[in-house]
């Protein structure tokens, strides 16, 4: 995973819970450009812990002068977003990975419909900037509960094809109306809570949309759970995974060499073979197939957990 140290040059509150961070190269070097939908992984040295969180880029993909992300403070989360909100100040330097895109626009689309729920607006902002630059046809639907919480409003330009739906004000997003009567060749991109993605998929299926025209990204943080133990086949060592830790983080803490990229169950980099499993793997990823999930022969350490007597993995 290639990465470089970047300096925090701007911090701005977009809403009470969401802050925008801008990073630039300390020597003024141009950063690699990217494509709309890409994310970076931010490393946060928090005491003895090295936290690593993935955040979608919201800045202009064509602009290499800096990267920007928007971070929502999750008070019930594992601590990464709280660290960003409370411990990171202007002038600090953090290690930021090279962008990677697991949610890119389909260049074949005749039109793009971008649907975002809550903080799921972040990758859509960069996709919008790319579409504006390419002069492609698109529309955006952004749903939030309260205007005061809708950080995306500060990032979206006022244009007739960009719509905000604030449910608290009685304007609920009507997926049926959005997806009906779109021209043939339209692609839909959804980012937000799992429920929104499922609702778009179901509505699109009912209206006869081809499955290949639907794209989505769930921003998956490693879910907490009960502590569990894992045995490493190569060394015979046993590693304990804490309730708020992911298996990947526990492996890293134990100095086990393991490749990773998105840390959210989507990219496939940390895929690990299961040697023996007496119990049930709690698969939380979007990478393995249903067959692989049910056979319990593979696990994605970044998001998946285990309950049972014994799990031996090929590490």
């Amino acid at each position, binding site marked *: 995973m*290639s990465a470089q140290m970047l300096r925090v040059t701007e911090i701005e509150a977009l809403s009470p819970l969401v802050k925008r961070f801008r990073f630039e190269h300390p020597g003024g070097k141009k950063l*690699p*450009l990217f*494509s709309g939908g890409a994310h970076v992984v931010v490393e946060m040295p928090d005491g003895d812990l090295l936290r690593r969180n993935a955040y979608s880029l919201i800045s202009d993909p*064509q602009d290499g002068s800096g990267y920007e992300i928007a971070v929502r403070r999750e008070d019930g989360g594992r601590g990464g977003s709280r660290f960003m909100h409370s411990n990171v100040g202007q002038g600090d330097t953090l290690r930021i990975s090279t962008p990677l895109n697991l949610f*890119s626009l389909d*260049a074949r689309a005749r039109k793009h419909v971008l649907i975002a729920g809550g903080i799921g607006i972040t990758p859509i902002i960069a996709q919008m900037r790319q579409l504006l630059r390419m002069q492609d046809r698109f529309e955006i639907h952004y749903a939030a509960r309260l205007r005061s919480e809708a950080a995306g409003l500060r990032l979206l330009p006022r244009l007739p094809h960009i719509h905000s739906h604030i449910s608290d004000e009685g304007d609920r997003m009507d997926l049926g109306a959005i997806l009906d009567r779109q021209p043939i060749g339209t692609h839909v991109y959804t980012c937000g809570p799992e429920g929104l993605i499922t609702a778009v998929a179901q509505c699109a299926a009912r209206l006869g949309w081809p499955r290949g025209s639907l794209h989505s990204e769930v921003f998956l943080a490693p879910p907490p759970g009960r502590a569990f133990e894992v045995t490493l086949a190569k060394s015979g060592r046993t590693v304990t995974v804490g309730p708020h830790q992911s298996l990947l983080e526990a492996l890293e803490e134990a100095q086990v060499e393991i490749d990773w*990229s998105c840390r959210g169950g989507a990219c496939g*980099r940390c895929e690990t073979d299961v040697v023996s499993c007496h119990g049930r793997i709690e698969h939380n990823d979007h990478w393995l197939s249903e067959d692989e999930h049910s056979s319990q022969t593979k696990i994605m350490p970044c998001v998946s957990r285990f309950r049972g007597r014994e799990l031996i993995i090929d590490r």
Partner: protein
Amino acid sequence: MTIQFNDETFRDDYSYHNSPAAIRRFPFPFDKDDYMYAVNMEPHGSGRAGSPFENRFDVDEHYVAEMRDREITLKEDPLRCQSLPHMELAGWDLLELIMEAKSEDYPELFSLHRDGDRWHWINRPLGIDHKFTFLDPTTLPYGPMEYITRQAQGDFAVLDQRDGNLWMEAGMVTSQADWSLDFDIGMNFFEWHAPVPLAHEMGIFQRALKFLLAIQQDAPSRRLNWTMTVNPRLDTSPENYHKWGPEKRTLTPENTGEKQYLRVELQTFFRLPRSNGLAFPIRCYLISLQDLVTVPKWGRRLHRVIRDLPDELAEYKGFTVNRPLIVEYLSRFDDGKPTSPGIFPDE
């Protein structure tokens, strides 16, 4: 560094030749005395100084002649260069990548000046001095991919990445080892590799695809592939098989060293920033057996590899008919001594 460009041909009188320096830096593909498929990827972009792996895009003494040969092939068959409509942005990505790399790595040959979207490109070996607007195709004489690949050695496949697969949807292919862009265009990674024997059963393509999908910007990779070609011909395409296929039958014990070439492909993989596509340059290097055996390690090793190669691979690579002649010729340069590890000549 100054490069003396050869005046040479890759067809008709086949005046192609390697200087002694070009022989020494040839990308010999075998790191041991036998060969089997492997996902033999390694990082690309800063290899051994002087080798074809030193720079992102190698420019060598054959540059000008290769570009002339490409022009002839394209004139006869314009479908060697195709780009589906949605691949234009990836074409601009590729243009930027090549212009940046060449102007940084070979400043005496190429220069690029940028003022926002107004770009000025100078290619001294080909006598090109051009001002254009980035992302505005009307300011270039060809589409962006065609424009830049008429100025870059090797074939180029430009792949779209979607639905967990790679799709060959643009390319410039005039120096290929018997495959056709016109046939493969629109295919996904598994479809265009369907004819390759053995590797599917070995799970090679599943592993390779996972690797390629995860290639990051600024972290290109490379691998070497190889085959055998009679005469130094770049255009060994299925479309022109009637021209080069019969030449396989012109090999005799007397002319094998001179007419039989080892053909090596330096395959590289670059993530494209704006389009999230993947550029797949396939650079072809040719060396006659008589030149190759001037490096004793290579003569010994190539003899052992060709002699012991599984029949399916010789068949797929298309040299079964000449294999006895090649093995006979090379055996004269194999004294049975052990060879050192790695691909480079012994000092």
